[in-house]
């Protein structure tokens, strides 16, 4: 098969992977090596759907032994199957990298034969890139659940970032849609990656400086560090009835216990015809957007997940963003004085982001900040004015300081335009699957798991969290 055809098939098959970031590590150019990496990442192109292309995102192979209902590459689908040879893929990566098309390689794969065989193919590709071509750019590798720990360790030493797909937010859904996968099989490599990163970090910290009286124990052979840019994961939302409350709690637990860099959400797209999947042909893009907004609040705004969402209202507000929603529910906290409020308070104001808050803190040392100055700093003054005072004056006069009145001012529906199938986006909660379950929100509404293997239950609202915290107790 021609390499162009292969590229077309395997990149088409990889496009549903959401993670495409080249961030998390700064690596300067080295003598005799090609490329570098910067912590902020760099997007080299944007597809017609507005998503960035920063890495060459391809599958090693689209042959797969699994039969997951939602996946385009499931073994029961009749699509052309092909596999890159490691040399072909490495050549292509270098050719694209030299032309400044990409920042590196994103290598995922279907499971051909077995996880070990697939991982070995990936390792071969990465070692050609790193050792033969002396490629110093960014590499993101997907760990295949079920591969042996030794191979995972080798892969991690070649890649910059590792990720394991979480696929679906609950064990119940996994059992329904991806019967060959289970929770512990997914969590085990994530745990291993986290432990390896931590060990590697510690070893490096110890060997870096002369901190004992003994001769310095710098290893003679320099080894690449293990996944220095950390790990990420992704899950499909909207294919199964989990609430936003469930999803956000899960991602908060992942950040906390697995020290993940990112949790990606991917709105479910109807690709396959399957009775187990929602068939209403609408994509929950708005819900995905709100979940990402909430995710940003968790990572950059020092919000706690309990502040964003509670079990009584398990879905995020579609009208206003989560931060504005928090502000409207905590009007007693506002207005705050921009010229004196601490950084963490500024971060709570709708319209002031992490950058804006930092600029305010810097700029107010030298001058008194009023409307004109705030606008110059790039603050969304139109939104922020209801929640701040500038040198004692409140600028949101004319609007009653009540949740209802302010909500009308802050309501910002997500306007996606009228292109393509965006016209038939649907809202959270509008699902037509699980005929047995009408209200999927409450944990006891979920059907009880048919078999228990002893120990704590892995299912229910906090099933994954329990599995993350107590690996020995909770079995899949």
């Amino acid at each position, binding site marked *: 098969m021609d*390499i*162009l055809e292969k*590229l*077309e098939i395997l*990149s*088409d098959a*990889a*496009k*549903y992977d959401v993670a495409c970031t080249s961030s998390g590590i700064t690596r*300067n*150019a080295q003598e*005799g*090596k*090609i*490329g*570098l990496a910067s912590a902020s990442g*760099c*997007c*080299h*192109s*944007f*597809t*017609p*759907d*507005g*998503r*960035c*292309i920063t890495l*060459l*995102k391809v599958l090693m192979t689209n042959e797969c032994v699994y039969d997951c209902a939602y996946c385009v590459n499931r073994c029961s689908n009749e699509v052309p199957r092909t596999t890159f040879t490691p040399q072909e893929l490495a050549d*292509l990566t270098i*050719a*694209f990298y*030299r*032309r*400044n*098309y990409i920042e590196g390689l994103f290598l995922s794969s279907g499971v051909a034969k077995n996880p070990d065989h697939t991982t070995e193919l990936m390792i071969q590709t990465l070692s050609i890139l790193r050792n033969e071509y002396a490629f110093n750019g960014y590499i993101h590798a997907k760990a295949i659940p079920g591969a042996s720990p030794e191979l995972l360790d080798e892969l991690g030493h070649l890649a910059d970032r590792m990720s394991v797909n979480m696929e679906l937010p609950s064990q119940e859904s996994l059992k329904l849609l991806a019967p060959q996968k289970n929770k512990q099989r997914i969590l085990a490599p994530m745990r291993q990656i986290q432990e390896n990163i931590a060990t590697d970090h510690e070893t490096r910290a110890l060997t870096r400086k002369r901190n004992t009286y003994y001769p310095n124990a710098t290893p003679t052979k320099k080894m690449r560090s293990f996944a220095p840019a950390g790990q990420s994961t992704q899950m499909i939302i909207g294919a199964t009835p989990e609430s936003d409350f469930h999803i956000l709690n899960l991602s908060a637990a992942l950040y906390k216990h697995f020290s993940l860099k990112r949790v990606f959400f991917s709105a479910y*797209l109807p690709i396959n015809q399957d009775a187990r999947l929602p068939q209403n042909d609408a*994509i929950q*893009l708005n819900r995905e957007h709100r979940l990402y907004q909430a995710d940003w609040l968790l990572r950059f705004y020092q919000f706690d997940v309990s502040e964003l969402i509670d079990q009584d209202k398990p879905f995020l507000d579609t009208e206003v963003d989560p931060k504005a929603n928090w502000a409207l529910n905590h009007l007693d906290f506002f207005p705050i004085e921009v010229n004196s409020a601490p950084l963490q308070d500024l971060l709570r104001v709708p319209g002031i982001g992490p950058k804006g808050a930092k*600029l305010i803190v*810097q*700029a107010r*040392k*030298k*001058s008194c*900040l009023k409307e004109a*100055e705030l606008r*110059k*700093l790039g603050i969304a003054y139109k939104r922020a004015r209801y929640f701040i005072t500038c040198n004692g004056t409140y600028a949101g006069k004319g609007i009653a300081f009540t949740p209802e009145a302010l909500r009308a001012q802050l309501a910002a529906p997500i306007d*996606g*335009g009228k*292109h*393509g*199938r*965006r016209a038939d986006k649907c809202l959270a909660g509008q699902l037509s699957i699980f005929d047995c379950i009408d209200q999927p929100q409450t944990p006891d509404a979920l059907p009880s798991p048919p078999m228990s293997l002893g120990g704590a239950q892995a299912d229910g609202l906090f099933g994954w969290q329990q599995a993350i915290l107590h690996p020995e107790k909770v079995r899949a």
Partner: protein
Amino acid sequence: MSILVHEEYSQDVAYAYDGTLEGLLSAIFYAYQSGEHPQDIDTPQHLQLRLGQRLHHIETSTTSALRLQRGISRICGEDIFDLIKHASLSDAPNASYAIYTFVRYALNQNKTHPCKLCKTRHNCPQTTPCARAKTKARKVSSLRLEHAHEITGPVLRLERAVLNERHRMKQFLRFEQTAQGIWFAKCNPNANVIPVLMDYFCARFGCESFVIFDEVHHIAGVCDGRDWQLVQTDSLNIPINTSNEQFIQAAWKCFYDAVSIDARYHPELRRQFMPKRFWRNICEMHERMPDTALKAHTSASDASNRQTLSPGLRLDQTRE
């Protein structure tokens, strides 16, 4: 009181300089030397004289530019000179005047600098603060924190715009391999960013030679694998590409088409991240542009090239 330049101090004079950083620094030096407060500083092409205004052409002098650079670096810190250097690359109208007022303000703010009482300060060869002063100097100058100040703010915003444009170039440059093995890329930035871009691509490429040509400012950055130079030129002869080049571009277009998800089609978002003004130099976007736009541009640029034939090739005019 602290702001030195007011309209009433200004005498009716405008400075015209050659558009380079050296020229701008020479003009500012001249303003200090002659005790004048020019109302406008700009290149002769953009300068529009006010009623009754006298025009003074500034001769670019490397010695005075270097002396001013040394002074700014010593008194305000190197990061402030970097700020001036970056801001001066901007194409924005009034950028030069904003920098002039900023230099006056910055030097005035730091009147009591560590070199003030040093006996050898008049013939001190150092361009950076010396060891004694360095311990006192802060990492980031406090001037850089004055985002809301009426003189510093505009210069900080100019720098930010230039660095944003530089990042855009890092994203959207597309190299082609020519037959001699040299990589070539064309770009149309709205600021003269090639001087601040070359170091990045030198590092990225390792030890290969490449050329980046700026169609707007007619400046090329030439890297021979180790060192780089700037060349001001209007004549551009691109050698033919290697045979492999077509294939790789086809592969890239194929990849670009394959990764898009139709169900999420959102061209406004793409346009926001990848503005249309760059599309003519991004190879995967060519087929999405109307042919007329591409043709119109090429003929227009040819015409403008003919009009502004500069005095030939000048090698290494500014090396940052």
